[in-house]
């Protein structure tokens, strides 16, 4: 029946092919306005990155000064700094999408959006598109601080860094989808997870150390997380080794599986949201 329905009447409209892109653009632009008019939201992309860089950069410097083989200390410091730069890819991607969705719940805009041609994936795509700008700002800030304060140049890792970043970006979005699903199901009470979930992933996700550094009981969990392998690939690049394709492949496959699971989860929660009429929480 869908294809047999009426064409929209009235004022000139963009082509059917262009309409979804325009909707994604409209959402991204709305979030750009929100950021411009809420300077406190810049905290996530300015202050946190610098705090993290100072914290982990200084830990690295401290270990270097503790004695022992200089090369080991320097490698440790580089692991910490590269880890925090790459961690901010996951963090910024996740936070941008989660808080972007929460913005629609805080401003009670969900019902209005749901009664337009906007599709759920277009909403997420619009938020994620603007989130990329926040991500560039946040990760750029960490990289800049690492260079300015600790003379650590992340670009020296070369082009090999790009697939690692792509995998971590996708991983961040997958975590965000899970958070969005939980907010759909449990309401704004689940908001704390947007930030809290990252503190669970960080120690288990191999950001600064390999799986072997964790207590035995946690190692299987860590090995299952795709971020663990992406960060391991990053460390191999730091060591000057060749492109670690095995780790990258594990990370890529794991990320695809996690993303598919996250999409399935959010679709399930969305069905529940519609079935139980949870939209009235936000109207």
């Amino acid at each position, binding site marked *: *029946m869908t294809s047999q329905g009426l064409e929209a009447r009235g004022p000139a*409209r963009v082509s059917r092919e*262009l309409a979804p892109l*325009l909707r994604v653009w409209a959402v991204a632009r*709305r979030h750009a306005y929100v950021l411009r008019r809420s300077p406190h939201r810049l905290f996530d992309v300015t202050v946190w990155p610098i705090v993290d860089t100072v914290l982990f950069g200084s830990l690295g410097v401290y270990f270097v000064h503790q004695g022992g083989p200089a090369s080991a200390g320097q490698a440790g410091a580089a692991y910490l700094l590269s880890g925090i730069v790459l961690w901010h890819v996951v963090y910024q991607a996740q936070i941008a999408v989660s808080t972007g969705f929460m913005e629609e719940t805080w401003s009670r805009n969900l019902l*209005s*959006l749901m009664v337009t041609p906007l*599709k759920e994936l277009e909403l997420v795509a619009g938020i994620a598109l603007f989130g990329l700008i926040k991500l560039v700002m946040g990760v750029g800030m960490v990289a800049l601080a690492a260079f300015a304060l600790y003379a650590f140049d992340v670009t020296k890792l070369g082009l090999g860094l790009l697939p690692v970043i792509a995998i971590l970006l996708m991983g961040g979005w997958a975590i965000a989808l899970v958070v969005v699903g939980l907010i759909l199901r449990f309401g704004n009470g689940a908001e704390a997870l947007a930030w809290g979930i990252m503190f669970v992933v960080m120690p288990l996700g191999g950001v600064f150390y390999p799986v072997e550094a964790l207590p035995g009981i946690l190692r299987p969990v860590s090995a299952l997380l795709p971020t663990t392998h992406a960060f391991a690939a990053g460390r191999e690049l730091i060591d000057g080794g060749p492109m670690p394709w095995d780790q990258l492949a594990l990370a890529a496959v794991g990320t695809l599986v996690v993303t598919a699971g996250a999409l399935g989860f959010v679709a399930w929660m969305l069905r529940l949201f519609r079935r139980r009429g949870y*939209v009235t929480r936000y109207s």
Partner: protein
Amino acid sequence: MSDVLRARGLVKTYRRGRAVDGVDLTVRRGERVALLGPNGAGKTTTLLMCLGVVEPDGGTVEIAGHRLPRGRSAAMAHVGFAAGYLPLPERLRVGEFLRMFGQLYGLADPEAQARRGLQRFGIPHLAKAMGTELSSGQKTLVGIVKSTMHDPELLVLDEPTASLDPDVAMRVRLGLTALCEERGTALLVTSHDMVEVERIAERVVFLSDGRVVADGPPLEVAARFGRDDLEEVFLHLASERQASEHTEGLRP
């Protein structure tokens, strides 16, 4: 194909009980229909199911020939929705808000449509105002501009004039009536103001306990209940509901 909205056998049960129980609702092209009933009668749930926001447990909904939920996105291109209780998003100017929704509706020139809409409802000076600076009446008017700027086939308004001054409510009413007459837009409206309903609607559908208990022109419906106007029908149904709730409460 003269029906712009066709809902058949809508059923919805929440944990607290059945909210909507087999509602049929049809709105023809250009028709102005009011969905009425006391609090808890199932009006909002029925509206939300018709808009594809809440999934019915049973029944079907079709808008402009697009069956929900599959055709929801295409169907919504034909629908405008505003509610007196919905705020404007913070941190957006009125013009930005309208442009955003114009783009969501796929308009090629959303700014021009926004200007026309603001003009129609007599508020062109609000284009640069922040959403948070508006009075509740102005917010309602902007919400209605948003819901009409894409020239929808069906305009759904949930309590559009709730808590408005009589003069603003009149401006809303006149603007809507003119729009419906000029463009042949169908209107589905809920309201607790029976005088307003008698002025706007050609047909009223009364719900009570999730069921349609009357459907017809306002005066005919009032006569069917042996009352002079819709206000009396409303009070009659509300008191019946109260009595039935009281009886339920007395049951062991």
